[in-house]
């Protein structure tokens, strides 16, 4: 079985290194084919690993001793257990599909080979993150995916906005990673090891205050990676990257790493319910907060990005409340339908010449029916309507919130669900139905390549039926994760489900009705609330004035006063001395090889004399 583990882990690396050879060359379909093949190989290996894990077998390998210095001993090991294998299958499946999809999407891009290098490198980093058996390996993968995310957001680096967005994502993640790094140091200080097994085995004997601190610090890291408030701004800007990247990294896999971290460290978090409560509260807040921003946005990809944020909030609620397997389940279903949604958006962009404003679309259904159907399926799944995948996972989260007695959280999530339904169908209605605005603007949309649609089909099917695997999934994951018991009665549960479902369906119908008749009037755009939402609660502006400006002034001061006056002066002085010496010794460099050889022999003689006459002891 170890064989499969190594194949699953290193196949993407091989693909990445292979296509790396071609990055400087012209478009070469071979790179895409090879990377796709290797990712599929990785997926198949993951599936076989899942089968092995299913038959109660946990694969734990120690590949090598990575660092062994003094007391510090960091073995580099990988573990495939019930949690990580779910992530592995999800990651490799979505990435394989995205990779194949990109063969169509990136067809005419000049960075074709580079793109596949990055994607495969990302998958490799993500697998390290997921499969590592210690916090350091996780952190390495964590930073690796951050790097790949940076590279892919700034993929079209000649665009200012893209490179700015890449930098923003990178820097914001580093800020959050600082928290995580401190958490890791604290762990090592307390436990003397980074390995999950060791840490969780000894966690009982640690001061609860320290555990709380560790939990909070780790959560800060998770916040950064999962773009929770207040680190949320980078995710929306990250939409500058190619759409397959948004689908893979910024919807399905990387941003869920934060949730994965919480689930991984569930043994730690379940000891400190206060921290869990904080997480849940923040998650609930973000769920509503992000959804509200999605309500009014006109950018196709940003709407979906905010939706992602909101769904991540749901996951954090579940994770915070201790319903880890539910969080993981939602993570998985979300990966399916959200990547489908993004890839559908990619098809639309492809058809509309990279136009993102949904006001300029409308009535695209006739032009691209298959994409429309797939996106509708994904939207329904996102809204959580029976029997689509989202219904099962999301409803479970709402139930969990209600169960814990956190009614305000439940209420927030309830409202969030309504908002989700609204913005999803606003998107569908404005893009695919209504007036054909694009005709006035001179677009000629068309359906994309058939093989691209075929690759989307698995995602569509999974978005539809994944929910029915709820019980096997629960059985599978709770072998490792703690069980979550609902304490309320069956009637209450049915009532809750009925309430939520009715509410959501009503909102959907209302939205369809409203936008079917032309949508809201222009007047609504002057409302203060609309302006507030439109400007994303002015948070980017606040960041700019509160953080960027003072930091700029400080940096300028450091540059003008400290750097130029003191450091540069010292450096220049050394350089001047060297330069003068060089001027003097220039005569030695006559450029004649013979003279140089003579000097070389002089050096040899001096060294030999030193070797003979110099005795260190004397």
């Amino acid at each position, binding site marked *: 079985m170890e064989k499969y583990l190594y194949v699953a882990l290193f196949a993407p690396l091989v693909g990445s290194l292979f296509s790396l050879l071609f990055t400087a060359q012209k478009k070469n379909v071979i790179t895409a084919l090879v990377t796709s093949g290797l990712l599929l190989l990785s997926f198949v290996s993951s599936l076989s690993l899942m089968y092995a894990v299913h038959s109660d077998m946990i694969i734990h390998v120690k590949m090598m001793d990575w660092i062994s210095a003094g007391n510090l001993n960091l073995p580099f090991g990988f573990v495939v257990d019930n949690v990580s294998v779910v992530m592995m299958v999800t990651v490799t499946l979505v990435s394989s599909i995205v990779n194949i999809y990109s063969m169509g999407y990136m067809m005419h891009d000049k960075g074709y080979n580079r793109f596949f290098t990055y994607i495969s490198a990302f998958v490799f980093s993500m697998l390290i993150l997921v499969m590592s058996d210690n916090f350091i390996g996780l952190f390495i993968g964590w930073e690796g995916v951050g790097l790949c995310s940076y590279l892919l957001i700034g993929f079209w680096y000649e665009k200012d906005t893209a490179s700015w967005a890449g930098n923003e994502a990178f820097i914001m993640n580093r800020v959050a990673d600082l928290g995580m790094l401190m958490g890791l140091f604290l762990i090592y200080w307390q436990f003397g090891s980074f390995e999950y097994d060791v840490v969780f085995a000894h966690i009982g004997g640690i001061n609860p205050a320290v555990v709380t601190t560790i939990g909070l610090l780790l959560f800060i890291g998770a916040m950064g990676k999962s773009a929770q408030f207040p680190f949320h701004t980078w995710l929306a800007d990250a939409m500058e990257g190619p759409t397959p990247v948004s689908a893979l990294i910024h919807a399905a896999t990387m941003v869920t790493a934060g949730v994965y971290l919480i689930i991984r460290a569930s043994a730690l978090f379940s000891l400190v319910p206060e921290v869990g409560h904080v997480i849940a509260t923040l998650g609930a807040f973000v769920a509503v907060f992000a959804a509200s921003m999605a309500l009014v946005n006109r950018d196709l990809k940003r709407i979906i990005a905010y939706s992602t944020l909101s769904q991540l909030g749901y996951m954090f609620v579940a994770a915070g409340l201790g319903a880890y397997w539910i969080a993981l389940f939602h993570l998985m279903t979300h990966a399916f339908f959200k990547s489908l949604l993004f890839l559908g958006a990619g098809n639309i962009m492809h058809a509309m010449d990279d136009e993102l404003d949904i006001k300029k679309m409308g009535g695209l259904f006739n032009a691209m029916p298959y994409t429309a159907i797939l996106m509708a399926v994904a939207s329904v799944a996102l809204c959580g309507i029976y029997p689509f995948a989202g219904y099962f996972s999301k409803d479970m989260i709402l139930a969990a919130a209600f169960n814990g007695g956190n009614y305000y959280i439940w209420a927030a999530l309830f409202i969030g669900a309504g908002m989700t339904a609204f913005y999803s169908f606003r998107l569908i209605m404005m893009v695919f139905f209504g007036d054909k605005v694009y005709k006035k603007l001179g677009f000629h949309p068309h359906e994309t390549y058939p093989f691209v649609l075929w690759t989307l089909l698995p995602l569509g099917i999974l978005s539809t039926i994944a929910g029915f695997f709820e019980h096997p999934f629960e059985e599978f994951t709770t072998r490792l994760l703690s069980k979550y018991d609902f304490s309320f009665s069956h009637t209450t549960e049915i009532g809750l489900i009925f309430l939520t479902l009715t509410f959501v369906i009503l909102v959907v119908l209302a939205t369809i009705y409203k936008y079917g008749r032309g949508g809201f009037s222009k007047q609504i755009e002057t409302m203060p609330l609309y302006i507030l939402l439109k400007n994303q609660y002015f948070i980017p502006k606040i960041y700019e004035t509160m953080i960027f400006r003072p930091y700029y002034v400080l940096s300028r001061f450091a540059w003008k006063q400290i750097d130029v006056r003191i450091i540069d002066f010292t450096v220049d002085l050394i350089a001047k001395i060297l330069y003068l010496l060089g001027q003097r010794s220039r005569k030695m460099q006559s450029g004649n090889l013979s003279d140089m050889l*003579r000097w070389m*022999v*002089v050096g*040899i*003689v001096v060294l*030999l*004399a030193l*070797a*003979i006459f110099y005795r260190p002891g004397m």
Partner: protein
Amino acid sequence: MFEVIAFYMFSILVIGMFLIVVFSKNALYSMSALAGGMIFISGFFFLLDADFLGVVQIIVYTGAIMAVYAFGMMFFDTTRDVKENIRFKKIIYGLSILSAIFLIFILLAPVYSGKIEALYPSIQGVGNIQMIGLILFTKYLVPFELAAIMLLAAMISGIVLVKIKMEETPTDIEVARGEK
């Protein structure tokens, strides 16, 4: 007895040959003398029970390296004496003698301090070649492979550096001229 005679004979021959190499004005003399010196050096290796090394010295140094030098010399006019303006002769000889003396001191230092120990002692009754093979393919396997790669790289670079239309055979030239 024979060893002593052989040692002094070979020493005189080698030193003489190498002096010719260094002081001769004609490149052809130098080349021939160097090739001769190489062969005589292999005599030392036979004296030192390093049969394999001796034969390798002849085959590689004399048979390949010097032959390649000779082949290279065919590009130049070798029969002509080369005029060289040599400056600071005293410095040259001073430096050489100094370095030789120091070098001998350094080489002799461990002999007199007697500190070196055999890492891979040769086993009685096992032939020189077998021993070399054993060591070369166990302890020194990686350097051996590296040397192989280095030789390959050197060969390719040598070909690339010197080649001019090497891929054209007379047939190609005929085709290019339209005779075929």
